[in-house]
């Protein structure tokens, strides 16, 4: 009998709130984390991004510990994990694993040529030691699907009976490294991003951390992880497949594992980075699956593209969506600009959400799809 696996705790640290409730409140009021920033250390001109306020971060962190020497990202990660570890009362033994998801981790350490601090296993160790995890941390670093892929990895490990509980933290920072890189790709929008819109012209970068507890314990389950798959496009390392092949197959397999049909999906939390190619590819993949009438949003209008955090952060918000039976507006969307029809959520509305789908795609041709099912 295959074990059922659930997400039982969630939390997030973002520019629009340092807990889930504050984030949801701002989302309901269409308050975005995206603002115009003039930070010469990050970029040589003012640019739109979703960035956490340093004073807020330090103030909140000081309440958790007075110990210093944590990097900015480490503070964000510790803040995300701390309340859920406290609340869950899960024993830290060899049956509890810690998974960290990030694309670049402490890459800012390279600015001072401190390569040693940029190692991702070092980042994981720092967080693991802070909380006292007893097992070897697992780091998932798989471009922008990392955050949701980590959920998939946790589910697989628990179903294989290797662990009973998995704490996951996902995070990335807006850094000079990232901003300059996306800019060199001409992929950064000069205005707040407009997912799926006709005048979309690129991503708005963002930073955040999110944390969840994945468990085989049904007792405090918020949602069940019903099916998951991660299929590569095998097409190009930086552009998505024009037929959305990898995403199509990932969703198809996730649905099959969840033992449901496409028409049972009530809501899709898509990737929607607002680049011309990504959004078009998603529209094609969704249509191929007959999902064009399912309400879909991209949360990147609220958070920007948070890279290694995005898959998990957006899952955390989508879980609230499902629990509250509310669809949240796909902020930034104005006029449809993809060649295949899809049903963009244009205002907050009530809906019955029994099943929802989270998707993500990333550099390297990767895609991840996870089907979540409400627990009754």
């Amino acid at each position, binding site marked *: 009998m295959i074990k059922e696996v659930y997400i039982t705790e969630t939390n997030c640290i973002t520019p629009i709130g340092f807990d889930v409730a504050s984030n949801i409140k701002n989302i309901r009021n269409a308050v975005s984390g995206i603002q115009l920033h003039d930070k010469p250390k990050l970029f040589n001109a003012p640019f739109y991004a979703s960035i956490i306020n340093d004073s807020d971060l330090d103030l909140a962190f000081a309440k958790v510990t007075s110990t210093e020497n944590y990097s900015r990202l480490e503070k964000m990660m510790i803040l995300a994990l701390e309340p859920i570890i406290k609340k869950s009362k899960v024993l830290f033994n060899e049956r509890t694993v810690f998974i960290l998801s990030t694309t670049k981790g402490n890459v800012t350490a390279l600015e001072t040529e401190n390569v040693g601090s940029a190692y991702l296993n070092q980042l994981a160790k720092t967080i693991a030691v802070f909380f006292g995890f007893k097992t070897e941390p697992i780091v998932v670093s798989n471009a922008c699907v990392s955050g949701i892929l980590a959920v998939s990895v946790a589910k697989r490990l628990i179903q294989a009976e290797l662990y009973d509980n998995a704490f996951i933290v996902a995070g990335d920072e807006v850094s000079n490294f990232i901003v300059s890189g996306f800019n*060199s*790709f*001409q992929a950064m929008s000069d205005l707040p991003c407009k997912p799926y819109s006709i005048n979309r012209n690129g991503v708005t970068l963002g930073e955040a951390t999110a944390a969840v507890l994945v468990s085989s314990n049904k007792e405090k389950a918020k949602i069940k992880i019903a099916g998951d798959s991660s299929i590569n496009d095998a097409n*190009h*390392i*930086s*552009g998505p497949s024009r037929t959305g092949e990898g995403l199509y197959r990932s969703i198809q397999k996730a649905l099959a594992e969840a033992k449901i049909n496409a028409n049972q999906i009530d809501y899709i939390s898509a990737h929607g980075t607002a680049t011309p190619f990504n959004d078009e590819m998603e529209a094609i993949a969704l249509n191929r699956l007959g999902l064009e009438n399912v309400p879909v949003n991209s949360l990147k209008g609220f958070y920007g593209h948070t890279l290694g955090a995005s898959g998990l952060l957006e899952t955390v918000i989508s879980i609230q969506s499902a629990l509250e039976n509310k669809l949240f507006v796909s902020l930034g969307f104005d006029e449809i600009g993809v060649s295949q029809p899809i049903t963009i959520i244009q205002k907050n509305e009530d809906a019955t959400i029994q099943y929802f789908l989270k998707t993500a795609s990333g550099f390297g041709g990767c895609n991840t799809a996870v089907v979540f099912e409400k627990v009754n």
Partner: protein
Amino acid sequence: MEALKQELKSKIIEVLNLEDVAVADINDNDALFGDGLGLDSIDALELIVMLDKDYGIKLVDPKEGKVIFKSIETMAAYIDENRVK
């Protein structure tokens, strides 16, 4: 312009890591993208950086790249007219 064309051929080979391609293999009017040299979207972005770094030309609209980078001929003509360095 001949010298500029030769220079461009040599730079492209170096900047884009075109192993086994010699300057003599690239004809002035060969298509650089698609069937010709088979360059892709990342190569196009690198050429935009090269325009800036080596010739001081900042492309205002990156979509212009499609026309400018059609061939060595079109690249040389554009650079000749717009170069700052």
